[in-house]
């Protein structure tokens, strides 16, 4: 047993020296392979980071959101629905919410406007903690808003202290900026305007008996699916969204983008694997001679294959570590600058999104299986053919 281990250590030693002897060729392969792994890993890390960020944002979202559909499109939901929902056992609170998008013609940006009843909204008292400056207006006070940092910049660029928005009838509504959200919340608040629900109703001309959707808060989280079913049964024209369904949608969105990019990269990876197979299948005269000499000197076919295996493993392993490390640095310290346009989307306002790469074992295993294993197969399998070089050809000088 000990002898076998020592033998393999000796073979590993020989392999390292063999790799060093052909260092420019092996170095080139390693660099290219590491580059391919870097690209694949970067996408996986970015997807994981964005998904984690989105899921984090959902933690403070209501357990169930109820919207109303008409002809398959979302429309205003009557406040009466709230009364019916509140009667379902297990529902803790039903809070109406008004929100929508406001298109700013000057910047070309779509701003998100949310009108909330701070008195009734759970965690509303904690909104102060998210502000970098100013304070949350008193519940019920109108004409004062909380804005994200990009909106503050837009207002300041216009040389005014007030945020002016236009109603559907083109009349103007002006708001004083009561507070600005902290940079740490940029991913959620950068293009956000939070106002009293009455101001939002006035801005969007929404009926006093309606809201955009209803936020349903549930006492026991285990009961969310049951309560969602009951709401859907009681309100046939309602769209009932649970928090888990929204998080799955986020994962699908990011996964789709990541998958699309990965398919493009897998083409490059496939080309690289074909190249590796081709390289491993052919032997230079020098390599044939070396294998023949080794076999005459007492190296078995399995020893030759072990050398090939270790060569492939060391190059692939080195490329994997280099590629993943580079990808981590690219995502964590350079905000995935190479891929942001693909992953972040079409928004005009881009928050200063700080991505924390997701280093899960399953992610690393996935990258490993899609990169290292195909390369190992492409180099070791054809190596079998090279390992059976006839030994007598060396004696005859061929």
């Amino acid at each position: 047993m000990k002898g076998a281990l020592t033998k393999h250590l000796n073979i590993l030693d020989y392999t390292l020296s063999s790799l060093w002897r052909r260092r420019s060729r092996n170095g080139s392969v390693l660099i290219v392979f590491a580059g391919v792994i870097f690209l694949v890993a970067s996408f996986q890390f970015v997807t994981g980071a964005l998904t984690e960020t989105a899921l984090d944002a959902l933690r403070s979202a209501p357990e169930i959101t109820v919207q109303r559909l008409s002809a398959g499109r979302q429309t205003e939901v009557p406040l009466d629905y709230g009364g019916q929902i509140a009667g379902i056992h297990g529902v803790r609170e039903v809070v109406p919410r008004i929100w929508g998008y406001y298109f700013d013609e000057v910047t070309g940006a779509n701003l998100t406007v949310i009108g909330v009843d701070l008195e009734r909204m759970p965690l509303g008292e904690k909104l102060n903690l998210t502000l970098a400056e100013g304070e949350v207006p008193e519940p019920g006070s109108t004409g004062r808003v909380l804005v994200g940092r990009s909106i503050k910049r837009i207002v300041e660029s216009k040389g005014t202290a007030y945020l002016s928005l236009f109603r559907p009838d083109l009349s103007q509504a002006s708001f004083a900026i009561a507070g600005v959200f902290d940079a740490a919340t940029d991913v959620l608040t950068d293009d956000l305007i939070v106002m009293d629900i009455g101001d939002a109703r006035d801005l969007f001309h929404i009926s006093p008996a309606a809201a955009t959707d209803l936020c349903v808060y549930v006492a026991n989280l285990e009961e969310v699916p049951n309560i969602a079913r009951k709401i859907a049964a009681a309100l046939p024209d309602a769209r009932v969204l649970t928090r888990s369904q929204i998080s799955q949608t986020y994962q699908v969105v990011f996964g789709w983008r990541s998958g699309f990019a990965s398919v493009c990269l897998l083409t490059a990876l496939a080309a690289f694997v074909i190249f590796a197979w081709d390289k491993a299948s052919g032997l230079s005269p020098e390599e044939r001679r070396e294998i023949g000499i080794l076999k005459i000197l007492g190296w078995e076919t399995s020893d030759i294959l072990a050398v090939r295996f270790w060569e492939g493993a060391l190059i692939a392993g080195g490329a994997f570590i280099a590629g993943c490390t580079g990808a981590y640095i690219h995502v964590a310290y350079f905000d995935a600058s190479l891929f942001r346009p693909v992953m972040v989307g079409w928004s005009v306002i881009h928050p200063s999104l700080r991505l924390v790469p997701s280093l899960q074992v399953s992610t690393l295993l996935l990258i490993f299986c899609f990169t290292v294993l195909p390369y190992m197969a492409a180099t070791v399998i054809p190596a079998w053919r090279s390992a059976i070089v006839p030994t007598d050809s060396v004696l005859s000088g061929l």
Partner: protein
Amino acid sequence: MFIELEGVTKIYNQGQINEVVALRDIDLRIEAHTLNCLRGASGCGKSTLLSIIGCVIQPTSGRAAVAGLQPARMPDRFLTVHRRRCIGFIFQNFNILPALTVRENITLPLVPQGLNRRAMAERVDRLLQRFSISHRGNFPAGRISGGELQRVAIARALVNDPPLILADEPTAHLDSGLSREFMEYMAALKQAGKTIIITSHDPQVTEHPAVDRVIDMKDGRIDVS
């Protein structure tokens, strides 16, 4: 008897249009601790006979016994281990790997043995000293002289202390001085108890006083004329 061949025949590409009969009914006995030469023109079967004795290939028919082993009955893996332990090879052109150092070349037969680094280094150092090439140990083998290359080849053949040494046309590309030096080494190895077989048609080899027997070959047969 150390080596015994009875009715050994070797046919390449048997039954095909390019069939070649390399050896025909070879009967040969070689005693231990002797220095023997196989002599004959190119293509007479010397290298094939050496390959069979060296357990590199198996005969098509006949019986061969080498140092107690019958290679015809052995799987390739056992032949490889037998070769490693019992046979040292010195090739035409020496077949040293030029990219490896002198020390690494001599170590090659030891790698699959399972010896630790210290044990391997001790054996190699002893041989470097014996052949006066210690100062070249860490040189790339492609940068040493012809004479030093010859000594590296002999050292590599001896690193596992095999009882049988096979040399295929070892002086084919050497000058007379190096050829003479080579035969002096072979004579010393015979004195040390090795059995040696050299294929050559170089008179400096075949007519050396240390040679016990010259075996002539012609057209794949032992020439007894």
